[in-house]
């Protein structure tokens, strides 16, 4: 974990209620896709945990994509390039890319889609075949489709209302794809559960919980696993399939 004052380089709306922010600072503690950062906001006591969307090591840029869900993230939407943020980086275990098989499926749902971008790129760079399913409620909310395509990663879009791509939840896209031998998922818990139930292969699932500190001190976000109590912020947010207790 490191703390640094990051400079906002970009903060733009990319879909209704969804924003992408580029931050410049010390990103050396961010080592794995699936990790998160914790951002202090003036006027709010607790930091805001946001998943890492991407990093650009040469430029020292961290990218986060966040949903305006409350007063804190709403304040974040109003911040402009040139302003600074106090950020704790390198939080959480992240995805263990090495555990993946040769034919890997990454699945992201809604605000869980952004961290799957770096995850998919890392899998591709390690020589694995990667396919992505990104699920949203409606076509207007679809993000990242082009970015995945630009990286040469084949992506299937699902929308619950069928206004874009395959109609239904992310699991509705499974039958169009060859059976994967490993999967990485991030999204709302019902989505994670549906993926867990639908696929026989091994995988890793990124969970969300209300956090206090974000680095393992307060025990606010503990969960039960088959291997004992774990902290979502420190021992997670990524849990392996075999340890999950629903």
């Amino acid at each position, binding site marked *: 974990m490191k703390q640094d004052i990051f400079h906002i380089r970009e903060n733009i709306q990319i879909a209704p209620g969804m924003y992408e922010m580029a931050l410049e600072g010390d990103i050396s503690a961010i080592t794995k896709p699936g990790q998160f950062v914790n951002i202090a906001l003036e006027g709010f*006591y607790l930091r805001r945990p946001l998943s890492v969307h991407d990093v650009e090591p040469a430029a020292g840029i961290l990218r986060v994509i966040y949903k305006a869900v409350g007063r804190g993230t709403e304040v974040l939407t109003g911040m402009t390039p040139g302003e600074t943020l106090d950020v704790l980086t390198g939080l959480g275990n992240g995805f263990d890319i090495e555990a993946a098989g040769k034919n890997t499926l990454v699945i992201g749902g809604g605000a869980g889609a952004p961290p799957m971008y770096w995850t998919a790129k890392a899998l591709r760079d390690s020589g694995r075949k990667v396919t992505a399913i990104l699920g949203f409620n409606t076509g207007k909310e679809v993000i990242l489709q082009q970015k995945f395509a630009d990286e040469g990663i084949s992506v299937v879009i699902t929308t619950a209302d069928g206004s874009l791509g395959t109609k239904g939840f992310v699991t509705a896209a499974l039958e169009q794809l060859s059976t994967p031998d490993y999967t990485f998922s991030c999204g709302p818990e019902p989505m994670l559960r549906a993926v867990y139930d639908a696929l026989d292969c091994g995988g890793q699932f990124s969970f969300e919980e209300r956090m206090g*500190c974000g680095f*393992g*001190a*307060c025990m606010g976000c*503990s*969960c*039960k696993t088959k291997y004992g109590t774990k902290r979502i912020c*420190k021992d997670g947010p990524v849990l392996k399939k075999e340890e999950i207790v629903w």
Partner: protein
Amino acid sequence: MVNLQTTLSGIPLDNPVIPASGTFGFGEEFAPLYDLNILGSISIKGTTREARFGNPTPRIAECTAGLINSVGLQNPGVEKVVTEELPRLATHFGKPVIANISGFSIEEYADCAARMDQAEQIGIIEVNVSCPNVHGGGISFGTDPAAAAAVTRAVKAVTKKPVYIKLTPNVTDIVSIAKACEDAGADGLALINTLLGMRIDLKRKKPVIANKMGGFSGPAIFPVALRMVYQVYEAVQIPIIGMGGVSTADDVIEMMLAGAAAVQIGAANLVNPWACRDIIRDLPCRAEYYGIQSLSEIIGAAHETKHG
């Protein structure tokens, strides 16, 4: 050169700054961030006789200038704390540690204290009779003078280590509880634990926290904590560890003026992992600014007549 040293029941501390129980785990998350040996002491995660998962999640809610937690004494149980956590902490921290213990019966408090008594690292046993997050225990011992005294006596009977009783602010008259503990043989007091609080999620229209209510801490409660330390200092002769929203070196000095011999830092560790280091760094400069040469000399100095 400002003298930061203070003393708790004959145990010298290099400075009065102690991370508060439940905000510092067993030191493991903070050891990579700074040298823990700069701390006066460490109050370790609240420990019970048996292992506990704690309360269901969500168990954190943000508030203006603070947070509510309903962790509910998650801990691996006293045996694992003594045989696994304390040896690991010893690799990072070489000074006497404060063991924070809790229970659901007087026997559990005594059993937990007796096990902690065998651990050489433990300098002080801090008895939590004030956790607002566990039902049928904890706080029920801290809201009644006779029950608090009974716990004090039971713990005193099984240990030679100094016993400090950690008090709850969720009472009508904290002074009567403090005096009952002193009369029952407590070597010191620690106050305050969290204030019982609540938040409701406006979108779901239901309590944010699964357990509905929890303990409110953070800078918002500092004036309440300071007032209670001030009141208790007037009524007892035993040393007080002051805590509640302390976030800066100035807060530490203010708490000591009210009567605290040492000061615990809680919620601040969660939002600034380097909070204790920063406070210790700032203390000499801030003390000098206020014309203070020795911190131990200002304990209770805000009172009209000093006792002791």
